[in-house]
């Protein structure tokens, strides 16, 4: 994301020739065999594989070892909109298309939405609250918000959280194609030439930890999760709402005890659809007023596509990069300004800047909005 590198390309999946949309941001050169044994793989849909590899990296980086009371007070909350979509696609094909009367015995434990969260809890002996949140494109932000709440309330000392989704399958893309919101040629958020979203896949996992606990052990703290808010538009199942988005940003600022002027960067939901980018821009102008002129707002979906239930988690990486490394990830593919999106979208190349507080937006189908506020350490 720092280099503004594009991960969107031609899809190489079964029956791609029957699709109208043939691009996506697939996780390339991922060899399951390198990360898992054959008996392990029998239980792991691709979304769980990606989640487990991300969790291994995050937990290793955190330096935490889970036993005794810490294990009991650590949970796993992951977002996933689709769950085991690869398993579903493959096995529907088996029974409906190929007429087979038998499926692999582990289809259910592979495809269930909580499979990834449970696999992580098993792999690391995490005995606390463990579940999956499925709120479409806001799944990860809701999951991480729940993790934040569990720690703030004292119910947990740490929570392994984030999201995973892998719906770059024939059926997954066919379903999205039907809505007529996918771009056939690229994701260009906030650009006047945008023509839709591009699907991606992947996982990102973080270790959220009680601040005092982390300080006491001398942990390398990446950033502070300072606030979270979630709202519902209660209006339309697919059309975004300016007021719902604005309300969630305002509430997140309030929860984090931040003033609008404190925020230097927003990782936008920025899907690249006409409706989202216009509505999100209007909501940002509404919440930030004059300060919107000085605010950097970028959509990293221009690079990694829309990971649906995992998107907020991957985008939190950009939020942390802004706070920790002083690098603002760009909105690549930006061509022509859209008067309906009059924001500094950090076009095409990353920028160095010191920011002390950021927001990360997620606005889902179903009218569900979830916004995280982070501060620099």
């Amino acid at each position, binding site marked *: 994301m720092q280099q503004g590198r594009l991960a969107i390309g031609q899809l190489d999946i079964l029956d791609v020739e029957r699709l109208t949309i043939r691009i996506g941001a697939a996780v390339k050169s991922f060899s399951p065999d390198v990360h898992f044994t054959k008996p392990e793989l029998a239980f792991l849909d691709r979304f769980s594989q990606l989640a487990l590899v991300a969790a291994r990296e995050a937990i290793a980086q955190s330096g935490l070892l889970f036993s005794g009371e810490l294990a009991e007070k650590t949970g796993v909350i992951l977002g996933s909109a689709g769950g085991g979509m690869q398993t579903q696609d493959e096995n529907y094909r088996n029974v409906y298309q190929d007429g087979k009367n038998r499926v692999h015995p582990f289809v259910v434990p592979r495809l269930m939405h909580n499979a990834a969260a449970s696999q992580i809890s098993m792999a690391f002996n995490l005995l606390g609250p463990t579940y999956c949140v499925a709120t479409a494109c806001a799944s990860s932000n809701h999951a991480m918000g729940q993790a934040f709440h569990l720690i703030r309330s004292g119910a947990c000392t740490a929570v392994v959280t984030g999201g995973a989704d892998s719906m770059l399958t024939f059926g997954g893309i066919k379903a999205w194609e039907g*809505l*007529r919101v996918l771009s056939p040629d690229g994701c260009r958020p906030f650009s006047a030439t945008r*023509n839709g979203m591009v699907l991606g896949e992947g996982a990102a996992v973080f270790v959220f930890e009680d601040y005092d606990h982390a300080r006491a052990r001398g942990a390398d703290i990446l950033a502070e999760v300072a606030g979270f808010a979630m709202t519902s538009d209660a209006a339309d199942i697919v059309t975004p709402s300016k007021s719902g988005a604005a309300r969630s940003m305002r509430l997140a600022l309030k929860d984090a005890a931040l003033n609008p002027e404190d925020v230097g960067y927003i990782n936008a939901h920025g899907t690249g659809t006409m409706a989202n980018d216009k509505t999100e821009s209007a909501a940002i102008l509404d919440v930030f007023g004059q300060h919107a002129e000085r605010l950097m707002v970028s959509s990293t979906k221009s690079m990694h596509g829309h990971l649906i239930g995992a998107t907020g988690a991957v985008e939190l990486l950009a939020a942390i990069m802004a706070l920790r490394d002083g690098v603002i990830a760009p909105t690549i593919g930006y061509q022509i300004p859209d008067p309906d999106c009059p924001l500094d979208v950090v076009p095409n190349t990353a920028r160095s800047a010191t920011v002390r507080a950021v927001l990360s937006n997620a606005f889902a189908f179903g009218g569900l909005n979830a916004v995280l506020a982070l501060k620099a350490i």
Partner: protein
Amino acid sequence: MTQLVKQKLREIIAAQAMVDVADICDATTPQQLGLDSIGLVEAVFAIEEHFDIQVPFNANEPDDPRFDISTVGAMTRAVEALISQNSA
């Protein structure tokens, strides 16, 4: 073919907009019928299913000239063109 396409298209649009077919003419616009972009997406699906064609419609680009949705008459001509492309 023209009359059949015209009549069927009007029936599909009328059903989607929940209005009487008799209330639709060539000059009628989707806005007049209360069809928003998601309503149009569903109408396009019904058109594709009925006529066995692939309609190049992207909800993000309502002004795309490849499938003119400005009026019912324009949609009729676009559907006829797609049908003749199919049989060509």
